[in-house]
């Protein structure tokens, strides 16, 4: 076991007791990247020099017995749609070719301020649009358990990096499941807190009302650690929740007493791989046997979630992505450009990937005069119903358990020609984004070499309950193994 395979909590202890140095941690992670990343392609940009410099600073502070935050000296990988000052931020797209942000996102700044080592920028479906990390200008990322398979997406690079030990922690973004879904496919923990918990300032917008940053770790504790750093109120984001900084990690306790778990019948119907269903029901049973109560809950509007999501997300995306026009930054088409309009058209046709163009067109249509009421407005109404479903369910239970994905990881290229099939991968995750609720995805076993994840959904701003439930499950599960 190398240093890069240890948990963040463990590495923190070893650092503080001066058993190891931050530089050694950085070295271990960079060595793993050197060994693995040619094959798995989790990173778009490596920031090894920065990480080593940050490690030196941490080591200096340790030698001077200075107080350190729990993340000091811990490697963190950043999804490449989160702005990093002075470091290329590509969103996995050609259209941002050569773009170096003049500022850092609040989430990344929090990590830097806490002494985390920024290892690099990870691969993603362009602008977060996809569920497989295949829609990247920089090539697909491979599943850490079988490189012929997808790691899920869109934060597939971050999930893969953590799974392979190419980083210890990572952050990603979750608009419809983009943190939770690759976490399930890669067998790591991924969590999206409540909308508003983490500032979106500096996160390249895909769908502003749904986008939320999330964290990855190889266990629940590590995930809580990274969230403690990136969750903060930010006056630069008008949708940021004005709440004190959380203490998720220090307050973790494996407590299942009186816990009421909801099981929505609508999530275990046709379309879900029975092997996944079995694993999840086994996980629920394990929790029940250890003190939790299980209740059936009803989420009757679940079947509309995917269509609602794709109407709202694409509408917002069509507007958010208008700024990529070749005028001020990024890629600009040069050949056969005769006037301003052809410059726009060629830049955008050549710069954006196929899926991005599809969503921009869909979203433009949804917002068009004459269609707005039928699509966008109606979707907003259904969104309110979905939100209401969840609120009603939470009157009876403390958390809800569902699958993360209906299928096991699929082969690279397998679903490329069928976008609708790909969209259905998000069927269990999008409702949370529509309702703004927190959700955690963690492993509950394997089918062949592929991990199976399940999702615990919590009430708004009650991340503690789902973290504690996940933490309790994790301990029971490892004891059971």
């Amino acid at each position, binding site marked *: 076991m190398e240093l890069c395979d240890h948990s963040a909590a463990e590495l923190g202890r070893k650092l503080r007791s001066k058993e190891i140095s931050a530089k050694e941690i950085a070295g271990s992670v960079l060595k793993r990247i050197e060994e693995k990343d040619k094959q798995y392609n989790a990173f778009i940009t490596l920031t090894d020099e920065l990480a080593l410099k940050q490690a030196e600073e941490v080591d200096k502070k340790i030698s001077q017995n200075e107080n350190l935050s729990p993340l000091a000296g811990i490697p963190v990988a950043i999804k490449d749609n*989160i*702005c990093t000052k002075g470091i290329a*931020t590509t*969103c996995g797209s050609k259209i*941002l070719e050569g*773009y170096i*942000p*003049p*500022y850092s*996102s609040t989430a990344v700044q929090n990590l830097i301020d806490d002494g985390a080592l920024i290892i690099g920028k990870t691969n993603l479906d362009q602008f977060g649009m996809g569920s497989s990390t295949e829609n990247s200008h920089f090539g697909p990322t491979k599943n850490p358990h079988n490189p012929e398979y997808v790691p899920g997406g869109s934060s597939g690079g971050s999930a893969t990096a953590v799974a392979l030990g190419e980083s210890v922690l990572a952050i990603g973004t979750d608009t419809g499941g983009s943190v939770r879904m690759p976490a399930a496919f890669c067998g790591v923990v991924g969590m999206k807190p409540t909308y508003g918990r983490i500032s*979106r*300032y*500096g*996160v*390249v*917008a895909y*769908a*502003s*009302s749904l986008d939320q940053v999330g964290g990855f770790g190889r266990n629940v504790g590590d995930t809580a650690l990274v969230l403690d750093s990136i969750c903060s109120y930010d*006056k*630069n*984001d*008008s*949708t940021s929740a004005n709440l004190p900084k959380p203490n998720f990690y220090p307050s973790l306790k494996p407590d299942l007493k009186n816990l009421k778990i909801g099981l929505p019948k609508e999530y275990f119907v046709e379309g879900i791989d029975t092997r996944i269903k079995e694993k999840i029901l086994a996980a629920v049973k394990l929790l029940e046997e250890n003190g939790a109560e299980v209740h059936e809950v009803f989420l009757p509007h679940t079947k509309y979630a995917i269509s609602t999501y794709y109407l709202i997300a694409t*509408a*917002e995306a*069509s*507007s958010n*992505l*208008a*700024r*990529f*026009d070749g*005028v*001020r*930054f990024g890629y600009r088409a040069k050949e056969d450009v005769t*006037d*301003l309009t052809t410059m*726009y058209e060629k830049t955008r046709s050549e710069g954006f990937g196929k899926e991005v163009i599809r969503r921009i067109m869909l979203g*433009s249509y949804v*917002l*068009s*005069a004459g269609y*707005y009421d039928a699509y*966008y407005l109606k979707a907003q109404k259904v969104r309110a119903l979905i939100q209401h479903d969840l609120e009603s369910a939470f009157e009876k239970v403390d958390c809800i358990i569902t699958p993360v994905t209906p299928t096991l990881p699929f082969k690279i290229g397998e679903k490329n020609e069928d976008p609708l099939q790909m969209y259905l991968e998000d069927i269990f995750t999008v409702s949370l984004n529509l309702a703004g609720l927190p959700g955690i995805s963690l492993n509950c076993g394997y089918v062949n070499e592929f991990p199976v994840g399940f999702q615990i959904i919590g009430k708004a701003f009650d991340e503690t309950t789902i973290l504690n439930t996940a933490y309790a499950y994790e301990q029971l599960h490892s004891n059971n193994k």
Partner: protein
Amino acid sequence: MDYDVIIGFEIHAELKTATKLFCDCEVTYGAPQNTHICPLCTGQPGSLPVLNKKAVEFCVRAGLAMNCSINKYSLFARKNYFYPDLPKGYQISQYELPLCENGYIIINGDDGEAYPVGIKRIHLEEDAGKLVHSSQSISSSEYSLADYNRSGIPLIEIVTDHTTNPMRSVKEARNYLEKIRQILRYIEVSDCTIEKGQFRCDVNISLKKKGSPSYGNRAEIKNMTSFKFISEALEYEIKRQSKLLKEGKKIEQETRLYNEEKKITLPMRSKEDAPDYRYFPDPDLIELELEKEFINEIRKTNPVLPDELLNLITEKYKVSQEDAYLLTRNKAVANFFTECAPHSDDNKKLARWIINNLLKHLEENSLTIESVKIKPKDFASLINLIVKGEVTDRVGKTVLEEMIASGKSPEVIIDAKGLKPIEDTKELNKFVDDAFSAHPEVVEQIQSGETKAINVLIGQVMRSSKGKANANKLRELILERIEKE
């Protein structure tokens, strides 16, 4: 004329807040290009807008001054279109639920009556950047340069309601524009300098047969750069549209541009080509909720309006309507008057002196009333001296110039320059003696009953005393002497 004219406006006024609408960049004019920009106002990926509360306050102030109802809840929306001066590819504006709705302002109608022009809405939005083309237009230019200093400066858009007392003539249109500008300047939310692009208008005009209930199609004329051009464009449109109607032709609903050289309007785009802005609520901004106290506070502290000041000046200070109108055109001038008035013995004369002498002097020397050092109390003293005859009009003007230049009181200037009126009877009589011996024929005229001729003698003494003789005393002395002779 056989047609009724209906004119409406969309006015954009730049707010003079310290910072931009959604970022902390300074609001400036004429600064070196791209020196007041940040990730947000250049549309960098990941940047987010944060609403400037002061701009909301300014918009509400305008709404209250224009008798609008202020919406407790309002929304910001994205107006999507591509242009290189618009860095985000959309403008943050308001669509449904603007800050202010359903108001009116009173203008002088053509019939001489007060005419309340309906205001449909006033909303808040951000300005775009500024393009400098290497040639005439973006399409004919080899290159265009973009300056984003202006990008994100707050604007209010004031839209008239064409169903509630629209303007009926070019003159009313002009009155409307001047009134809007006057109000915005009075409430200190915009400087409204047209040359600086702080006040921009789109005007729409339609004609209908006299008495007909149905409106004709509207032509909108965009980007008018002066009040004069607006009047000219409207005159032209009235001619063009009435000619078409007389010929039995249809008027197209379209957007037109005014050609300032040829003094004609030309089609820009038809209704079918009108862009679809795909408005939707901006998910980066939460619904704006205004507390009652916030609105009440603005109501309480909203500066005095031009009509209120005009009423005060005519009613309390008994100045004529015409003079009061001239005084209130500029708030600083009106304020100067009201500060002088309590110290003045003759407010009508005070008003006349401000209009005829002070403002004329300022205008001739391109000065503003704010920039001169003259104190209201001193100005009133000068008027009082003139009223008492202790200073002649002529000396008064000299003293005023000196007051403007130095800020000294009239008494100090009169003393220092030896302009003190000659009050001494002995001294005055010397001048009178000279006048009588120089003009025996005038003396005879007076004696024979032509009392008006006395002014010739007074004028003579004024000339020889360099205007310093106390006019009232002088008249007495001359009359005394005539009786004796």
